[in-house]
């Protein structure tokens, strides 16, 4: 299904991107071309094929990925806020929400 400019605007909104009119015009044909390209997968018969789950090797799948829930020191408030664009009184500060 070809992607048009209004699809691009809707996708941008879903992705929290405030893209410009000019960008919509550039992106729409580019993304449409890529989507057309990936649709070549439709020629592959995948009935009864299980989807892959990530990149794990069999050994990776066997490796226990859980650990005991032990309390340990974490980053801490000072370090966590150090790189914030706007922090105040031990919090991240953002523009008004409502």
């Amino acid at each position, binding site marked *: 299904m070809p992607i048009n400019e209004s699809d691009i605007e809707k996708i941008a909104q879903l992705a929290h991107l405030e893209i410009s009119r000019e960008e919509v015009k550039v992106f729409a044909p580019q*993304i449409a071309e890529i989507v057309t*390209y990936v649709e070549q997968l439709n020629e592959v018969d995948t009935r009864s094929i299980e*989807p892959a789950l*990530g990149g794990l*090797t069999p*050994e990776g799948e066997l490796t226990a*990925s859980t650990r005991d829930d032990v309390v340990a020191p974490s980053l801490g408030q000072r370090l966590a806020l150090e790189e914030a664009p706007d922090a105040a009184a031990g919090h991240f500060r953002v523009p008004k929400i409502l």
Partner: protein
Amino acid sequence: MITSETITQTRDRIVTGETNARSVAESAVGAAEKLNGSLNAFLEIDRQGAVTRASEVDAQLKNDAAPVLAGVPIAIKDNICVRGLQTSCGSKILGDYHPPYNATVIDRLLAAGAVIIGKTNCDEFAMGSSNENSAFGTVKNPWDTARVPGGSSGGSAAAVAAGIVPVALGSDTGGSVRQPASLCGVVGLKPTYGRNSRYGLVAFASSLDQIGIFARNVSDVATVLGVIAGRDPHDATTADVPVPDYVAALNGEIKGSRIGFPRALFGRGLDADVRASVEGAVQTYRDLGAEIVEVDLPHAKYAIAVYYIIATAEASSNLARFDGVRYGFRAEEAPELRSMYRRTREEGFGPEVKRRIMLGTYVLSAGYYEAYYHKAQQVRTLLKDDFRRAFAVCDAIITPTSPTTAFMIGEKVNDPLAMYLNDIYTVTANLAGIPGLSVPCGLSSAGLPVGFQLLGPYWSEPALLRLGDVYQQARPSSLARPPVYA
């Protein structure tokens, strides 16, 4: 010149007092500073930190046993966290973000005595095959500064090729270590998925990302892999598989090795010089006593399509965290929270990152998930099966690393799909989770490097490195020096 020797020889000269870590570090930093105007390979050069660290290594050597990388200078791609240095990911949205912690691979390198000299330039969030997507300017190829170094880890590849450092780390999601290694004429390894920790690597596509290694010598890759490989509790996808002695695996043995030749991948779209060079490498292996067997990977032709669905889907999710709240850039003067998010991301991300976020958002959106993402994961299963069958009759598969040599800066920048097709030989390894090694095999008629790729089964790094080392020993002239060199 430190780069004409192996890092083990450099380390030994430091340990025996013939030189010291400080002077080795100063010479690497000096080379980085001198060449950065022409290459733009580094986004940050840490002269003070490197010299301080090297002096510490020198002091420790007086008392303690020398670690395996004592005084070895190394460059790190700017999407891997190093405490005290920036991690921009080549993006305005992170800018001069300074992470408060080290990636696990960095802790391991430092414990082994390595000296980090700086952070290398890359395509924004590792998305690209030419380095032209960096927000901080394109890296230039040391073989021809009008050409791209490949990507996304182009700065690391250029830094090693130009003799600034003997080894560098990059990340490889679809070929981002192997392809620039090929285009710059150095060795590049993407290890098996789960071989080393991704903790502290800024995520692009988590089921494909793996930290990889650049060096001029295969043996140096083996040395560094031995340091960074292994299980890490901070990364649940690292596997509990013993780390063998990769250097000891370089025993020169090749008789009895079976190398798979996928004839169908040497056809349309492959540059004639690249084909001739890689077929020359196949002949070299045959002459050295390897058995060349024909193999077929019937689903490899779908790999780019599968990759650009899965990678963009995962990226759209991973990059949701960049919203101007906790770190990095925030757009000014947004009246309320949602518009702050949207403007921050609009101003902070470059065009290729936006394109991929939108493509990923689209393939995951309601009504399309089954048609794209689910379908791609099914074809990924078929591709894994292709490799399983192929590795039943061979120990490694040889392909070109890239269909062309380094192309001109600007040549493909307006055609994203053409750019994606550069990754045709490399994305399969990431989709299947298998290791891949790119080895230089000479120059094209235009004097540009060509590389071949060896793919192997899970955990076959010892065999891949052995085969790569055998080739380099047999063809020492395959590792040439570019015009721009330290």
